[in-house]
């Protein structure tokens, strides 16, 4: 005869078991297998179980692999910063300045292109930025420039493609944060004599910082792992880490190297997570 508390625990386990099992079977186990495979090696067309750190050594030894990581970090940090700087004012204007009844519409309008297929979205940017594309034709037409700008197939193009996506994402998260906060803090600060800038700097920004950090982390994870945007817009003028990983999978069937590179990518994301979490905790304390 089981006692009531024990019975409750067993019931709880039976409810959570499927989800835990699923996560272990299709997330934890694959990850472990990938970690193991990163220690193997592809030699002469076959994958050999070598148990060595060669793939990791190769990463630091081959400058084009290390450079891919650095490129990825640079692009990701740049994209995250620009996206926050563009999205915050937008979210703020929608939350505080747009009349209540139009707010939802304004927000939906701001994130609607989110639902264009993301492969097509990058391609559309290619058309916009092309040498004979809309932007160049418009600028030439007005007479601002004499020579078409070289926009497509550059890092700038990759960054623009990314920022476009993440501005929408961050506007949504920051808006939610601002609305949750409500107008009372701002009113209180204003009553105490703070001007607009002071209200922003001493009240709004600190209070929305946790939300910004969560959004920034989300941007970081999604951006650093993305293959399509740099592949379509970057013109292969430089490679980012996901492109190098896909080269290993697609062209060389070198899954061990791909696995090792993925583990390194994962390590960078984890580091970013730890830094974010730690910083947030310090901020709160």
């Amino acid at each position, binding site marked *: 005869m089981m006692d009531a508390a024990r019975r409750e625990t067993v019931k709880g386990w039976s409810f959570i078991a499927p989800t835990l099992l699923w996560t272990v079977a299709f997330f934890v186990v694959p990850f472990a297998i990938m970690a193991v495979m990163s220690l193997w090696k592809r030699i002469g067309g076959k994958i050999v179980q070598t148990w060595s750190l060669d793939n990791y050594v190769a990463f630091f030894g081959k400058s084009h692999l290390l450079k891919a990581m650095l490129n990825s970090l640079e692009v990701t940090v740049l994209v995250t910063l620009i996206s926050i700087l563009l999205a915050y004012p937008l979210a703020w204007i929608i939350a505080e300045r747009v009349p209540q009844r139009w707010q939802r519409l304004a927000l939906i309008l701001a994130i609607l292109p989110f639902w264009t297929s993301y492969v097509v979205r990058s391609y559309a940017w290619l058309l916009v930025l092309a040498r004979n594309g809309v932007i160049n034709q418009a600028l030439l037409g007005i007479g601002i420039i004499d020579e078409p700008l*070289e926009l497509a197939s550059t890092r700038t193009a990759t960054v623009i493609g990314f920022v476009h996506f993440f501005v929408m994402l961050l506007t949504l998260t920051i808006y939610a944060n601002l609305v949750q906060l409500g107008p009372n803090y701002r009113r209180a600060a204003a009553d105490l004599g703070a001007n607009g800038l002071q209200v922003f700097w001493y009240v709004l920004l600190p209070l929305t910082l946790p939300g910004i950090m969560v959004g920034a982390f989300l941007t970081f994870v999604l951006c650093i792992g993305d293959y399509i945007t740099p592949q379509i817009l970057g013109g292969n003028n430089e490679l980012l880490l996901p492109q190098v990983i896909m080269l290993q999978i697609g062209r060389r069937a070198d899954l061990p190297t791909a696995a090792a590179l993925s583990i390194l990518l994962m390590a960078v994301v984890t580091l970013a997570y730890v830094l974010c979490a730690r910083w947030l905790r310090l901020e709160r304390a």
Partner: protein
Amino acid sequence: MKDRKPNNIVKRGLRASALALLAGGLMSTMASAADELNALVWCDHTDPGLIKPFEDKHGVKINLKDYEGTGTALSLIEQSQPGDWDVFVVDGIDVPRVVDAGILAPLPADKLPTGDLFPELVMAENHTRDGKVYAISEKFGYNTISYNKEKVDPADMNDMSVIWSDKYKGRIAVYDYYLPVMGMVQMGLGKKTAGLNAGDLGAIKDKLFKMKSVSKLVGDVVASQTAIATGEVDILVGGGEWVTAALTEENPALDWTIPEQGGVRWSQSIGVFADSKKKDLALKFVQYILSPEGQARLATSSCYWAMPANSKAGSHLTDKQKAALRWSEQKAYLARAQLYPAPSTELDAKMQDVWTEFLQQ
């Protein structure tokens, strides 16, 4: 309450996952039912205009997976289960490598129209091993230089070294496939593609990096095609009729040529997988592709146009189509062109490393 013990639940969970896996297995066996054929192909075979007539005639369904580059194909095969595939379309130059790996099954030589092929395309040394035929050529063309004749001086295009000269800096796109482009560089250096070895890589790398510094982008089929069609660039290294033939109708300024040093000739071969369970149907498909009608459809399929290997296909092509394919000039072209380099596995890995460095440059 007895059966609510945690490890029973674990068991149940395991059983559920086993079921899920089983369902997966079932679905994949269903996918390889008797009336379906799984083909691993270049994208020109995905045109319904080519496939549909065969499907209708035999009442079967052809599942197509398209890839770019033999490396990709081999990696797909490696990541599959035996029996997953029936028909394989692969670069002619890579057939020996594929036969070595035991991937292809011998074909009945008497059931193939080998005698109708352009003589250069028989390529017996590639397709035959110990008296057995493993594949047959189906389509060919050139990786050479495509250009916009209104924007560049066509005379410059007769010398391969134009691809790394400063004259057209920033107006060059490079097709992102290491084998033909490195072959072109080798030819530009005055050497034979067939002799490409590790010792040549240094010089090739130098020129590749030089080429990167004057080029605007390195792109796959669509990126490079879009670039030259929209005027983003004026020269496409690695291009040829397969890029321009379908576009000339709307933009007659697009042209291609084979420089004095020659061009790299590519050819596709078709064969049947050794572990295919439907070899008869697969052979019928090979025969259809090699038939004059099939060849004409393949030559003008939606993804890219190129010459059919079967010289009898001409009777099923219009004069306009033949002109776009430069049917009548093939004799001279074939004489000047060289085949893709065919590296060993080790050299291939080294070449890919150089190519990755080239992209990262």
